[in-house]
């Protein structure tokens, strides 16, 4: 009997991968547990083992092939008693096998995880004549840390798996090799302890970057973020600043359910003396993280696992920074102002395309920094469009959108032609089932509906 060996899903967000290397050839006999291939995901190169005993029939995907969709047959396995029958599609793979892509030598483009791929933003702070390069958000964050660590010896990185493992999400890849184990520090799994230790190191004159494997785990250490890091400058009458960055993936990834899928944008933005950024594109990820590391205040950098693998243009400058506290007008428009940030921008941009085809031109604002919030840019836009819809993945109660609604009521009431609508994640813990998870997140169609409501169309 000949069965298909399928491209495995090796991470929650993996949709495609690369067959990096075949460890077997056609005709080799394999036992369950034998290494048969190396598969490169967006995070790491993973060993792939045989799950059945048998003989390798045919190699369907040559090594080096990129962008192989999960569940694509990559080889066949002939199991005992039968031979050379045609490959039978796996009973669980209900869809027809994806077409086999040709091996390519160029780096893959962004995996098609989010609906809207990131295109170069129209308004980006690049001096004329400066070229750009297309890199992933992951690489942008990595470059930001490396550049700042080169620039300032007091910057160091600590967190779980940041050093020898090369980062749970590969964001810190290569930093240990360049900066050594004194400045790239693997911690035990003790968020409460190392969040506090990082704060102490900042008081002592260093500039720590504390990576949380996800911000869900940072709740264990949130006392130090709020009570020890944020409040100290004020409590000391300005004597002791706390230059520290807390960063890591935030919000929902894919199918990791309630305890691993929460957006902390509103939580941290509530706290005076914290700065909070949530970048969407690679340029902002790089520029904002560099500014955050240089800032003399505690800065929360909310990243997103799904965005890590997405690519966009970043200016090729020796020192490219994006100032904290300034929103970006992603797209100019006249009919409605869409305000979003982070991965909410993916949904917003997708909705905007649908609106465009319905003749509605939205002005899209990517807040980028949530505290201090660039209310001026939002207010100016609403004074032009007279309508506002906010978009975020977090929960609806006491959300960023609620706050923007309040700001607009106070500062632009006379310009509003419709109530401000907040499109948010649903008011439930994140469910695991794929269909429910999709419903729990904010969707482009909800944004479209909201815009139609405020434009009375």
């Amino acid at each position, binding site marked *: 009997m000949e069965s298909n060996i399928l491209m495995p899903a090796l991470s929650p967000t993996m949709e495609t991968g690369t067959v990096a290397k075949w460890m077997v050839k056609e005709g080799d006999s394999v036992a369950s547990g034998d290494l048969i291939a190396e598969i490169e995901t967006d995070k790491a190169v993973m060993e792939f083992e045989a799950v059945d005993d048998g003989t390798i029939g045919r190699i369907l995907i040559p090594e080096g092939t990129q962008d192989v969709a999960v569940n694509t047959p990559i080889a066949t396995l002939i199991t005992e008693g039968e031979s050379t029958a045609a490959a039978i599609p796996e009973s669980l793979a209900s869809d027809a096998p994806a077409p086999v892509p040709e091996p390519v030598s160029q780096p893959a483009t962004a995996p098609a995880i989010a609906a809207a791929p990131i295109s170069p933003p129209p308004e980006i702070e690049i001096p004329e004549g400066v070229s750009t390069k297309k890199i992933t958000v992951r690489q942008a964050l990595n470059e930001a840390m490396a550049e700042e660590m080169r620039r300032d010896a*007091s910057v*160091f990185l600590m967190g779980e798996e940041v050093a020898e493992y090369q980062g749970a999400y590969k964001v810190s890849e290569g930093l240990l090799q360049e900066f050594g184990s*004194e*400045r790239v*520090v693997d*911690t*035990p799994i*003790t968020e*409460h*302890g*190392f*969040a*506090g*230790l*990082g*704060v*102490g*190191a*900042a*008081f*002592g*004159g*260093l500039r*720590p970057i504390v990576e949380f494997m996800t911000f869900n785990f940072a709740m264990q250490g949130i*006392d*130090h973020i709020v*009570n*020890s890091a944020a*409040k*100290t*400058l*004020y*409590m*000391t*009458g*300005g*004597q*002791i*600043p*706390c*230059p520290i960055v807390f960063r890591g993936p935030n919000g929902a990834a894919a199918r990791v359910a309630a305890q691993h899928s929460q957006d902390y944008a509103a939580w941290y933005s509530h706290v*005076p*003396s914290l*700065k909070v950024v949530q970048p969407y594109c690679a340029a902002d990820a790089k520029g904002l993280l560099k500014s955050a590391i240089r800032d*003399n*205040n505690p800065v929360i950098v909310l990243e997103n696992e799904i965005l890590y693998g997405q690519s966009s243009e970043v200016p090729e400058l020796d020192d490219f920074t994006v100032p904290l506290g300034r929103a970006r007008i992603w797209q100019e428009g006249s009919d409605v102002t869409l305000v979003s940030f982070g991965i909410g921008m993916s949904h917003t941009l997708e909705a905007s395309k649908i609106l465009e085809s319905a003749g509605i031109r939205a002005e899209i604002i990517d807040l980028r920094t949530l505290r201090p919030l660039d209310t001026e840019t939002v207010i100016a836009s609403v004074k032009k469009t007279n309508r506002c819809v906010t978009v975020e993945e977090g929960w609806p109660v006491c959300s960023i959108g609620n706050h923007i609604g309040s700001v607009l009521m106070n500062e632009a009431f006379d310009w509003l032609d419709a109530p401000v609508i907040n499109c948010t994640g649903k008011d439930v813990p994140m469910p695991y089932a794929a269909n429910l998870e999709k419903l729990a997140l904010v969707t482009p169609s909800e944004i479209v509906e909201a815009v139609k409501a405020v434009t009375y169309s």
Partner: protein
Amino acid sequence: MAARKSASKPRATVNELLGYYRDMLLIRRFEEKAGQLYGMGKIGGFCHLYIGQEAVVTGLEAITEDGDKRVTAYRDHGHMLACGMDPKGVMAELTGRATGYSRGKGGSMHMFSKDSHFYGGHGIVGAQVPIGAGLAFSDKLLRTGKVTFTYFGDGAANQGQVYETFNMASLWKLPVVFVIENNRYAMGTSIQRASSTPELHTRGSAFGIPGESVDGMDVLEVRNAGKRAAKHCRSEKGPYILEMMTYRYRGHSMSDPAKYRTREEVQDVRKHSDPIDHARELLVGKKPGIEATLKEVDSEIKATVNEAAEFSLNSPEPDVAELWTDVFA
């Protein structure tokens, strides 16, 4: 309390002892004054007095080097005075005045002096412990050779973050002395009722951190133990635990009726183990006729404390504009 080791074998000069006596007395008189001002409504909120525990911080400050750091929780007035902060500025902070160390914005529990390397003054029980290890981490990375004295109580010793910190401090050989001020009561809960193993100096054994129990009512014992601990840290052997057996005479805070212990218990410690009386006895034993000098010291201290109180009460409250300053650096 057992007979004091240092009573039979004092290893300090008269001048050293006189200095410790002066430092401890300053703390006591200062705290008594703070208690009075609290009663008069001049100090608000929470106010935790250090009376009874003076030998701990005095003995340890006696062996610190310039540039060593210290951090503690909210029973912090004694630590500030002992590390050389100005009593006027401390009292002015207690009374919420512009001339206070935190310009009136921190209060009793949240006071700092970067110049004196005093990093608080923290209001959350146990939070100062990883912060102290972080200060030591910076010293290690910057190769300063300095040590951080991280103080916490028997109550905080049951906090999870303390053990997370012990683990990292030992793993990374951080130059930090963990000083457990065991005054027997975590607010109103006695150590026997709160700690499954009351020998707190052994709490580091799971992490390979040496520890010792010290008579914290005896300034010389404290000093000698501090020397051993600091030497251990400075020779890059990692952290060290000192459990200071001590006692607070006053309530946990000003509003504590202290029904959890008897008056007799407190009186017994005061009578037989008081750290200031002990230093005085040592001085008199070493140098007959020193009483006159001690009297002078008493009046000097009294004057210093009164001056601090007057200074604080005559200082203005912070300007209203201060509400919005120091939010961001």
